[in-house]
């Protein structure tokens, strides 16, 4: 689609990348830089805005406009930019702490407002930059510097949370699976409105191997549920596992050895108007990653905040030209002619 002839290299900066060797962030950076040319948007019209965290250093490494802002506030800052500059492609880079701990409220509101933002949440289930405290996605009972006897809070399921917050686009992908990651980015970029992409990311220093179950060749296929719109949800080495709907409870569950023609097998519908289905999908996996759906959970079109606001401006303007003098004078003026009386 792009006739700009941009390549991944065009999106690299001269800044040396300062992540730990082996950090999953490198793979994500490479995948994003590799995808950017597809956007067909000139570099000057792309903006990356991040909060604070290892992941949030990302914008420094993208040769576009960028802002490394403050902890948790990127969605709010990006909202102001996207609302005034609909001509830009605005991306938010955030982490599980940045987006879900301090920044949870901004994220939720950005999603319900449906401002045109692409939000990439690097989820390593840990606070990396502050050296390894548990995060809102850390599994319960996690031993960290701040929880020597184990963490106590039930983690958020970011997909469930986003759907509960009226998100119009929600997806999940993996740092190491470049093809899948880029596929999800493609879908997110095509979506009109706010898109939340949860990217499982390995922090090899403070939470190494967190997602190995979904990476190791010998477990990957058994635990990963790949979602393709319109396709029956089958998975497992030999495709014998499937997501089926319990006729009674109506809930979704996993069935083994499912015959090819089994009617109970759910056909994935990312465009379902009722978010209940996507929500049910999001509950198939807990923090143990047992049966983890990957891909686009939900993608429905809805008017965007920026679109509607700019439309209101247009309508207001259509009714009458702006008249500053008239505004200042208002309707209730009087005139003084004479000067001081005797």
């Amino acid at each position: 689609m792009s006739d700009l002839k941009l390549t991944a290299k065009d999106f690299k900066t001269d800044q040396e990348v300062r992540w730990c060797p082996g950090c999953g962030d490198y793979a994500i950076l490479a995948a994003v830089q590799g995808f950017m040319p597809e956007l067909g948007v000139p570099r000057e019209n792309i903006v990356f805005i991040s909060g604070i965290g290892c992941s949030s250093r990302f914008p420094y490494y993208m040769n576009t406009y960028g802002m490394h802002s403050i902890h948790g506030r990127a969605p709010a800052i990006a909202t102001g930019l996207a609302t005034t500059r609909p001509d830009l492609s605005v991306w938010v880079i955030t982490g599980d702490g940045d987006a879900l701990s301090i920044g949870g409220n901004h994220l939720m509101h950005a999603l319900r407002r449906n401002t045109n933002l692409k939000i990439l949440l690097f989820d390593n289930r840990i606070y990396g930059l502050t050296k390894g405290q548990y995060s809102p996605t850390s599994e319960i009972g996690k031993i960290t510097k701040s929880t020597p006897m184990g963490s106590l809070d039930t983690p958020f399921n970011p997909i469930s949370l986003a759907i509960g917050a009226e998100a119009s686009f929600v997806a999940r992908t993996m740092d190491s699976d470049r093809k899948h990651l880029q596929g999800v980015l493609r879908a997110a970029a095509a979506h009109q409105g706010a898109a939340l992409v949860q990217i499982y990311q390995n922090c090899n220093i403070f939470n190494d191997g967190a997602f190995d179950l979904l990476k190791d060749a010998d477990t990957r296929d058994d635990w990963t549920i790949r979602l393709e719109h319109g396709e029956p949800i089958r998975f497992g080495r030999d495709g014998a596992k499937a997501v089926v709907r319990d006729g009674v409870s109506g809930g979704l569950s996993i069935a083994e050895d499912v015959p090819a023609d089994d009617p109970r097998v759910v056909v994935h519908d990312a465009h379902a108007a009722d978010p209940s289905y996507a929500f049910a999908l999001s509950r198939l996996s807990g923090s143990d990653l047992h049966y983890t759906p990957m891909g686009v959970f939900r993608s429905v079109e809805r008017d965007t905040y920026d679109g509607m606001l700019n439309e209101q401006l247009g309508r207001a303007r259509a009714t009458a030209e702006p008249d500053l003098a008239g505004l200042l004078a208002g309707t209730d003026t009087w005139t003084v002619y004479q000067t001081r009386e005797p």
Partner: protein
Amino acid sequence: MQKEVKRLDRVVIRFAGDSGDGMQLTGDRFTSETASFGNDLSTLPNFPAEIRAPAGTLPGVSSFQLHFADHDIMTPGDAPDVLVAMNPAALRANQADLPAGATVIVNTDEFSTRAIAKAGYAANPLEDGSLDQYQLQAVPLTSTTVRALAEFDISKKDAERAKNMFALGLLSWMYHRPTDSTISFLQEKFARKPEIAAANVAAFRAGYNYGDTTEAFAVSYEVKPAPLPPGTYRNISGNPALAYGLIAASQRSGLPLFLGAYPITPASDILHELARHKRFGVRTFQAEDEIAGVGAALGASFGGALGVTTSSGPGIALKAETIGLAVSLELPLVVCDIQRGGPSTGLPTKTEQSDLLQALFGRNGEAPVPVVAAKSPSDCFFTAIEAVRIALTYRTPVVLLSDGYLANGSEPWQVPSVDDLPDLRVDFAREPNGPDGEFLPYLRDPETLARPWAVPGTPGLEHRIGGIEKADKTGSISYDPDNHDFMVRTRQAKVDGIARSLPPLEVDDPTGDAKVLVVGWGSTYGPIGAACRRVRRAGLPVAQVHLRHLNPLPSDLGEILHRYDRVVVPEMNLGQLAMLLRARYLVDVIGYNQVRGLPFRASELAEVFKGVITGV
């Protein structure tokens, strides 16, 4: 019968009633009648934080004070010449402010034993002689209004509601106010309910005629128009003036205005006002909280818009971290703090000047921010424009301080001509500025030390900025000790340098032989000015200087302070500007401080100044 007409040079009227009695509306109407008549005027609305505190209770009392005159005046007046009390609570809550001889118009219909007790009176004040020192006008406002509206097919409740218009009519008669504007106002306001509109107009006329015909009202008063400089005038209060100033600045700079705000008293009306002017390309964003409000404004500024956020003390506290980011990013941003009583939630609907130090120092690290303050309701317009000028010229967040009194108080304003407004156009960066054809986002203008503003969409200027310390010129992350020291001092020097762009201060020292200088800032301008006049009338010399710029302080201020034997600084706080002046100039300034949630009384200040002068 022909009634007597007395001529007065000035009158102070206070309307007081339940939060539900529409006193603010009544006051507003009387104000615009008075404005269009051509008097100079100044108003002071005063209401509780609750929406409708229970009827008949002291906390429920809402009042509106108006001072108008045939000469120019500076304050809403210290004490009312006339009090309109719609019920016992309203009388009791305001009685203390009444000078002997004042006229008191009470709505006798509301003086039931229950109501009297509810207001906390032991006995009926109308009968126990406790009002003997006043000229009491007992008027059955409610019943008379209801009777006057007998033929209208409206509910009794609606009829009773119109009693405030009856009262307005009565006072309009007493002071020869023009009535057309009110009548057309009512017809508009109730356009969708013509019967109600007609009833209110009728009540208003009935009140007017009541004055005209009733024996009890033997005298009416005439206050001639004030000889204001020729021009077109309107009445305006601070919040709309501020909103207009922002729109004007947007128009004159050619930058779209973006307001990111979260509602809070007394700042909300700026959001409301701006939301009505989308036609001017104004985008208003009601954010999820104050942090998102300022964050979105900063994001808009990054994109080349005029980013503004408005709030009051508690909200400004929440914005601190983001303002610090703006200091580090060096992007234009206007932060309006409509101050109210603090600390914490404090007194949400009362006025105070206690956020000055928060504006200056309420952030981590060395994070200098220019601070400007408005001195009167209409001055909010020009202060907003000045705040924008500084923000755009120096690429910096600017804090604009107003307060609850300016926000809601009003005064006549000579409408400025658009062409006289400053040209605020800015040059965005368009070309690389580096020696090797690269773009250096922190290469500064040698004069202003401002950095280039390169907005997304500009090819070749792609760059990254952030809150971590930046290397000089390149803006890349730098932990270098000397670079940090340099950048910290440079940001400070940039803000200090703004002083070079400021006009000399105007010292008001008519006789030129004053030994005492009064220094003020913000909304104390009126009371201080009025007090200085009194002092001079009393034959004592006194000088006054009022600061619009609190940071940086004007270059000539130090020299001015040292010219006088004594410097007095009245503030509605515990001495915040006083501290700054002492630290900066080592001058032993005398602070006079009140933290009562109300503007100073001119008479009181005058006594203070006299004391200092005669003490010299």
